[in-house]
């Protein structure tokens, strides 16, 4: 996803001189081409993420479009208050790009994983949160994020994700995309974990189930209209996310169901408790937390039988 992202930015930067890329000393093998093509618009501000965020805000308040790039926890958790005050509250047109959200940096250990970015950033005023599921979506959503007037957080994968779309979909910010229209049960998801949901769907189909699969690539603002429609058309809802259940995508869905007095049951799949000291790669950790295709399918089947 990150290669697709930067290729898209490079294309846009050819015609939009407002675009600049800022990094906190990360982006090895990703940002070099942009740096070499646009040396005057590339700024490595060093390992200093609070400064990074507010410099970006200052540039945006003076009409640039800064793209801030780093590993996701370093541009979300570390400088949270700088994002809140300087980017969110002031509606600064900064695009924050966090690579490896979830277990993307699994083997790097807990300090490099990010399971709380969505819940934290959902509270930031004016901020749009986008989590593409594959490189095709990344290209489209990167363009839309940059075109959008206002701050955006783009949560990207980093392990060389495969394309899930067979052709380029029509996407709009704030509108969910239906991967599969099924019946009775519906699964909401976002981000790289969508690949596992689609695999889980194949398993469910061998069990005579045909779930509707909705990709909510824009986590904020959520497509409330679509969610209400799906909730009223299905008997059981599920959410699957590579994030803590506290404050994540499923949590937002639950809020909508409660606020709209909708009775459809919702089962949330995600990381229940903060991970114990388990070391492993993204797939290992996903499986450990019930997010492999097999475990997703198993949990759904169990829930339906309860």
């Amino acid at each position, binding site marked *: 996803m990150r290669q697709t992202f930067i290729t898209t930015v490079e294309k846009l930067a050819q015609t939009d001189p407002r675009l600049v890329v800022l990094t906190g000393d990360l982006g090895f093998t990703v940002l070099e081409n942009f740096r070499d093509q646009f040396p*005057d618009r590339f700024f490595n501000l060093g390992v200093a993420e*609070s*400064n990074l965020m507010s*410099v970006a805000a200052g540039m945006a*308040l*003076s009409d640039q479009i*800064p793209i801030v790039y780093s590993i996701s926890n370093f541009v979300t958790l570390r400088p949270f208050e*700088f994002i809140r005050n*300087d980017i969110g509250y002031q509606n600064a047109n900064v695009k924050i790009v966090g690579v490896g959200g979830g277990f993307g940096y699994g083997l790097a250990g807990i300090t490099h994983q990010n399971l709380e970015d969505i819940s934290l950033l959902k509270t930031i005023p004016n901020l749009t949160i986008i989590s593409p599921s594959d490189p095709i979506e990344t290209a489209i959503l990167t363009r839309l994020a940059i075109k959008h007037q206002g701050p955006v957080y783009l949560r990207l994968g980093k392990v060389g994700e495969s394309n899930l779309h067979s052709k380029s979909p029509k996407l709009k910010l704030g509108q969910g995309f239906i991967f599969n229209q099924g019946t009775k049960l519906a699964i909401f998801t976002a981000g790289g974990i969508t690949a596992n949901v689609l695999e889980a769907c194949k398993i469910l189909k061998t069990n005579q189930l045909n779930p509707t699969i909705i990709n909510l690539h824009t986590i904020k603002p959520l497509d409330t209209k679509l969610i209400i429609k799906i909730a009223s058309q299905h008997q059981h809802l599920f959410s699957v996310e590579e994030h803590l259940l506290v404050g994540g995508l499923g949590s937002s869905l639950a809020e909508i169901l409660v606020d709209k007095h909708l009775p459809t049951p919702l089962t949330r799949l995600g990381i229940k408790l903060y991970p114990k000291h388990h070391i492993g790669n993204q797939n290992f950790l996903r499986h450990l937390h019930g997010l492999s295709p097999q475990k997703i399918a198993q949990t759904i089947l169990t829930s339906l039988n309860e």
Partner: protein
Amino acid sequence: MTTNLKDLEKTANLLRRDILNISYHGQVGHIGSALSVVDIITTLYFHIAKLYPNKPNHPDRDRIILSKGHACSALYSALYRRGYFSKKTLYTYHQNHSLLAGHPDILCPGVDASTGSLGHGLSLGIGMALAAKLQKRNYQVFVILSDGECNEGSTWEAALSAPQLKLNNLTTIIDYNKIQAFGRTKDVIDLEPFKQKWQSFGWRTLELNGHSLSQLTKALNSPNRPSSKPTVIIAHTVLGKGVSFMENNLEWHYWTPTIKHFNQAMKELKSSL
């Protein structure tokens, strides 16, 4: 703007009275901090900065960030007297439905950045100065820091960053009154040797009396600005400057004035011109 030092002195005195008036009216503290920074603000808003009060967001305006946002009564008084808003608006300071919060908000005409949480302003200023370079605009960026703010790690992240970016269009002014929220700077986090710290970080470093309008105007006019360095001015100031019982008194970082305080302070200010 004003080039006559006498006129500047009068303006600084008027701003001091405004600070007292609106702080008493709004029953809000931080008067000591406002009185320590007000000569710096007077020099910037009435002599140095290129401003467009009728078009506050003019792209070529100089940017001024009051990073020590708690001293905003000085800023609001200057903005009022430069014509950004009316006297009526000035007196909404710290009231419900006001644009003039207890720390500056970008919603207020003439405020270039929402500040108050310390350690943000210098980075915001760097961003604005970088944008000027990219857009080949000639505006200057001025950031006013407090001494306590130099405890913040992010201030030093920014201090490392600006010289690296060769931002000679950025000037930082430190209101060094040597009193922070809960004690004297030397007892809380001693900043000394302060000048050497900034010098060693690569800044053009000046040191002056932050209540001397002649020293401030001379330094901020800055004819000898180097081509590749940002400037920091360490302005030695006195908390509560201009009101005898507030001067160098930690309590006036916080206290709101009673009618007795107010009357005495106004009497002193009126007689000092």
